[in-house]
């Protein structure tokens, strides 16, 4: 642990311990199945510290985590938002609770954590994640520190920044394909979506850079399922905390506070979808229709679950709408409520982890060795400035020019990074 607190300080006080056992018993009786839960009690400041590291206090040093911490601390101090709980997909499942939560909130959060833990264990997207990630993160941290000792902090830091710019260039379906027995030996050779994997194997890099790149890749694959199941995961946990708590855990006097706390977390927030709200409604709707929700939580991700469950009635009942920018006023406003289009947009926003689909098509012949990337354009343009800067990062790693074929405003475009300069060219289709 990175905190200086003694282990005994982190444990739940006896009253909560008792509640925790009771809630876990109820959860298991209701059909949830999860590994041992390891609750740790921290104050809000320390929880922010853990959250800044993505949940892993053993993580490697980087200014980015410091920045995230700074942001979390500011929003906490200004009272804009607070973290109630933080659950890590490891074995045992580590869950950080915040000391300042009220007794009721702690009960709610413990029930919520049971839902997450069950989800981690049973959702197929999580099946191939490394449950020993806490140790692996510590090992990564050593890797970075050793590299820093040898190469200097600035050198390592700037390489890491370059590598992290590419952490989205992975194939979210690769772990699942591997698990289902597909032949993935050539999965990182072109054509492939695992651009990071290709670079880690084939880019002309010294050993330490290769190791760090491989590290960035493995962490990216570890976090990817959480991106793809955010709505389901939160929905599942919220569905169960509501059921468990109203099913006997709460005393009568706590019901109103519970409702307040619960509705705060699952409130509408116009302008974007609250994953807690949408998720819980999806599972409720499935439950009412008599579907096997345990099976749903096992085989789906956000996009596929929405595809299955969202229909005209759901869109109407949940008051989902499409918003867009009014060209005249510059305001963001409600555009329409047509169920089919709302659903299509929702799925589009969630598929591929909400990221553009970038494929490594081919590698050019020596001596140019031009790396050919392709953006599978689905109507949404790339942010071109960011794309240019990212391509330069790819070029820096690959050591040769890089070309990305994409579209802008309906026109085909090539982005080219060569000799540290990025340009945009019209492309012939």
């Amino acid at each position: 642990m990175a905190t200086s607190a003694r282990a005994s300080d982190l444990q739940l006080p006896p009253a909560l311990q008792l509640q925790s056992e009771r809630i876990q018993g109820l959860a298991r009786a209701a059909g949830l199945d999860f590994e041992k839960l390891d609750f740790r009690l921290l104050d809000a400041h320390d929880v922010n510290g853990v959250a800044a590291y993505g949940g892993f206090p053993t993580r490697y040093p980087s200014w980015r985590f410091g920045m995230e911490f700074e942001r979390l601390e500011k929003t906490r101090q200004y009272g804009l938002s607070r973290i109630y709980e933080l659950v890590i997909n490891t074995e045992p499942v580590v869950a950080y609770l915040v000391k300042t939560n009220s007794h009721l909130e702690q009960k709610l959060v413990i029930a919520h954590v049971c839902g997450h833990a069950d989800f981690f264990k049973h959702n197929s997207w999580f099946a191939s994640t490394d449950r020993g990630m806490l140790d692996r993160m510590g090992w990564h941290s050593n890797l970075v520190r050793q590299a820093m000792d040898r190469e200097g902090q600035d050198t390592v830091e700037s390489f890491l920044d370059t590598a992290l710019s590419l952490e989205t260039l992975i194939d979210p379906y690769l772990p699942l394909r591997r698990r289902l027995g597909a032949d993935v030996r050539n999965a990182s050779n072109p054509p492939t979506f695992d651009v990071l994997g290709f670079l880690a194997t084939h880019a002309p890099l010294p050993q330490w850079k290769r190791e760090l790149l491989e590290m960035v890749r493995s962490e990216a694959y570890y976090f990817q399922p959480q991106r793809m199941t955010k709505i389901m995961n939160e929905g599942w946990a919220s569905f169960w905390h509501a059921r468990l708590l109203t099913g006997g855990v709460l005393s009568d006097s706590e019901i109103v506070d519970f409702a307040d706390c619960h509705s705060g977390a699952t409130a509408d927030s116009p302008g974007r979808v609250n994953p807690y709200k949408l998720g819980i409604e999806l599972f409720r709707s499935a439950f009412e229709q008599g579907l096997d929700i345990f099976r749903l939580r096992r085989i789906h991700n956000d996009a596929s679950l929405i595809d299955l469950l969202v229909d005209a009635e759901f869109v109407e009942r949940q008051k989902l709408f499409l918003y867009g920018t009014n060209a005249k006023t510059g305001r963001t406003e409600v555009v329409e409520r047509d169920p089919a289009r709302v659903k299509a947009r929702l799925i589009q926003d969630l598929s591929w982890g909400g990221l553009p689909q970038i494929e490594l098509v081919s590698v050019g012949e020596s001596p140019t060795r031009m790396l050919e990337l392709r953006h599978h354009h689905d109507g949404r343009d790339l942010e071109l400035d960011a794309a240019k800067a990212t391509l330069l990062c790819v070029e820096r790693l690959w050591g040769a020019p890089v070309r990305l074929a994409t579209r802008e405003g309906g026109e085909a475009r090539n982005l080219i990074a060569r000799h540290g300069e990025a340009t945009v060219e019209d492309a012939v289709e």
Partner: protein
Amino acid sequence: MLRIEADRARFREIVRGRIRADLKRYLSTSELFARRGDRAVSVPIPQIELPRLRFGDNHKSGVGQGAGERGDSVDASDGEPGSGSAGEGSAEHALEVEVELDELAAMLGRELELPFIQPRGRHSILCEGGRYDHIRSRGPDSLRHTRRTFKEALIRTVASGQWDPKNPKVVPLREDYRFRANRPRPMPHSSAVIIHMMDVSGSMGREQKEIVRIQAFWIDTWLRSQYDQIEVMYIVHDAAAKIVDRESFFHLRESGGTKISSAYELCLAQIQTRYRPEDWNIYAFHYSDGDNWSARDTERCMTLLRDELIPRVNQFCYGQVKSAYGSGQFKKDLDESLAGEDRLVTAAVNDRSDISEAIRAFLGKGR
């Protein structure tokens, strides 16, 4: 949470580097000014972002949830949900980073190559603290000096004839104990007063005041870093002068004529009654658009400056801010009739980009 603090420190270091590189820009904006606390300024910086391949957001659109008719705005409530773990869509938040005023002053000093001021230090006060380079026979155990204690014990043992070379045992007694101690030492102590005078007559507009305000902020910041103790006094004047608090100094808008001598007289009176030049380093700044009421009053100002004010102050600075009505005579008059005075500095500020030059002129002499 020691490790996250190390990362936070690293982040702040990077941010400071950015502020330093961008100081020229901060020098001409009022961004920092409004965020000043007692010891630190919170500097707004855009969140540093790693480039990523992502979708453009020039046409903001997506799926939302809630009531509302076609055409209703959804901008208003962009609130975060009540709970959740580390969020992702956080890129647009600007960050605020606290920078100590001393550090900001150091950055300013480096950027404008300002010399350190040699205060006309008159006081030396005894200061507690200092280094622990002294020994005494009383003190807390945490400060016990083992070697010296044993040495004392050994001396006592030998002197009292108890020393037995075959059984060289030395047991310190209470009286042998020695402790590290600090010695109070004299430290030079200097104090300074800054007197800001501003013309608030009708011709000084909002932009002119803003320029004055930015300048005053940086001047304060620098001088504060140079003195242990600093007081700031604000005087505004049109046809008559009065002392005001900081808030009004920057926001007051008077109208009417301009009699610069009124401010100088008030300033002189304050120096005579409150800030004796023997005890204080005095800095007087006057900002105006340079239009004075009459040539006679200008004449009066010159006399006041030459005979009374300038001999008493470390430096008298006059900044002429160009207003919508153009620039007045006053700077020219000053430069001509008080040409030989090296404690007088004048500067013309046409717009915000001249601010850093003016600051350099005012503070560049190290006086």
